[in-house]
């Protein structure tokens, strides 16, 4: 199946939760903010949401800014 992450289509070979997706990318959930289909996901829910075809994920973090 394919999902859209940060605006880019990406193929997932197996079904997984958002938490598993982040781990596979080497990202600690403590350091990022995730929006799933335009709704912010609470950290405790990251493991409960299983990604489906055409889901949209935004994975964000804080950077320097004024």
């Amino acid at each position, binding site marked *: 199946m394919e999902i859209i*992450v*940060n*605006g880019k289509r990406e193929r997932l070979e197996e079904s997984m939760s958002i938490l598993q997706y982040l781990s596979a*990318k*080497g*990202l600690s959930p403590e*350091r*990022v*903010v995730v*929006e799933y289909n*335009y709704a*912010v*996901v*609470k*950290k405790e829910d990251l493991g409960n949401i299983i990604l489906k075809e055409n889901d949209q994920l*935004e*994975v*964000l*973090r*804080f*950077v*320097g*800014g*004024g």
Partner: protein
Amino acid sequence: MKDTFTIGGIALKSRLFVGTGKFSSHQIMTEAIEASNAQVVTVALRRIDLDSAEENVLNFIPKNCILLPNTSGARTAEEAVRIARIARAAGCGNWIKIEVISDHKYLLPDNYETIKATEILAKEGFVVLPYMNPDLMVAKRLQEAGAAAVMPLGAPIGTNRGLKTKEMIRILIDEINLPIIVDAGIGKPSEAAEAMEMGAAAVLVNTAIATAGDPVAMARAFDLAVQAGRMAHISGPGATRLYAEASSPLTGFLE
């Protein structure tokens, strides 16, 4: 002398807010923030680059600082609201600097969209600090919309050109019963001091510190300038006059 001002129920002692963009390294940024004595520090939210490991800026901001995420990248009120909600969900408090910009040349804020975003976010319990183009009526609307402070620009972002909008900022300070925090354009400590002498509650400085030859020393210079300007404001500057008035007594000369 106890001289604080309050935003979002928090009494702030330092009147210098600093931004975290454009520093040459995280380490220099940390040292500059410490040297500035700032209590409020701005950050931005961006998409992660999944192909490269990047360090998290939050790890380099002193823990006792209040984080002020901005909504940079937002072109409409709707986008600013979305970014604000994400920032709050990230667990970094409920302060938000609204920045709605669609002008790429001068990066001037869209006052109309900024008012709309302020209204929505203030209702949702955010402590809203809107970046705005200094205009009295807009500042009044922002106040009605529930802003916790108003942040007029001195000059376009990153230009280091100083208080080009000085007269309009003076009017905001005079008329608006909220802290006025001069944001953007301040390039030198003397300009920060000038804003404080006029009665600004605080100033926000990023580029002038981050791009200085020695950012850490410049951060300290801004801290001192902001303190000096504030002290001068409280002290009540003497009147200006056209003609000279001797400072030394004019009597008791030699014959």
